[in-house]
């Protein structure tokens, strides 16, 4: 059962990682991906919107798929919403397993699927007050699609 959180607040990656190994000795590795807000082209902030209810359920289902596909001992997905500044974390994916390959693959799977299947929308705010909705990228679709064939 994955730990899934959608929240405005920052998260503590060290504490979240420690929680996946605390009190157990069957974990051989924890893979993780921390997505961070880049400050390209004078970006002042990223504003993330989600669909309360559906977003949490969509992430939980993606995590269930990962848990069905790889022998995970734990899985955590935390995705922030609201206004995020360049350099700040946006998303954290953690996967724990007895074996490293399972953890590493499940982590890559989860972040690829989050990018294309979880209802979040990003709006970029620039210095000067202009803003722009981020468009979906074909390469994110391609990255997610590679997990369907295997």
């Amino acid at each position: 059962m994955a730990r899934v959180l959608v929240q405005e607040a920052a998260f503590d990656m060290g504490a979240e990682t420690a929680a996946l190994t605390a009190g157990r000795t069957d974990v051989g590795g924890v893979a993780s991906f921390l997505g961070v807000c880049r400050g390209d082209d004078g970006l002042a902030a990223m504003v993330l919107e989600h669909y309360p209810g559906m977003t949490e359920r969509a992430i939980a289902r993606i995590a269930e798929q990962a848990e069905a596909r790889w022998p995970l001992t734990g899985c955590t997905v935390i995705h922030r919403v609201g206004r995020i500044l360049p350099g700040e974390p946006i998303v954290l994916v953690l996967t724990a397993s007895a074996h490293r390959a399972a953890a590493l693959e499940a982590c890559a799977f989860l972040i690829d699927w989050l990018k294309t299947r979880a209802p979040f929308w990003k709006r970029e705010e620039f210095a000067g007050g202009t803003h722009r909705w981020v468009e979906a990228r074909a390469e994110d679709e391609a990255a997610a699609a590679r997990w369907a064939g295997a």
Partner: protein
Amino acid sequence: MRVLYFAWLRQKVGTAEEEVAPPADVRDVGGLIRWLAARSPAHAAAFADPRQVRAAVNQDFATPDHPVAANDEVAFFPPVTGG
């Protein structure tokens, strides 16, 4: 029927949520889009490019042929950009 809009669809329609009562011949997501688009110039603008519109019925992704009924929650939004 409860209709939700997210991201730029919300901005174009001018509301995040509305209660609607489409006629009986609106049976699926595609039919609902056509009916909503005729409600106002703002709705027409939001649905102008159907390739950029995604839908969910009762919080599950849905294609244009997915049925819709009176008590459904139907959401419209652009392709997702999380992660």
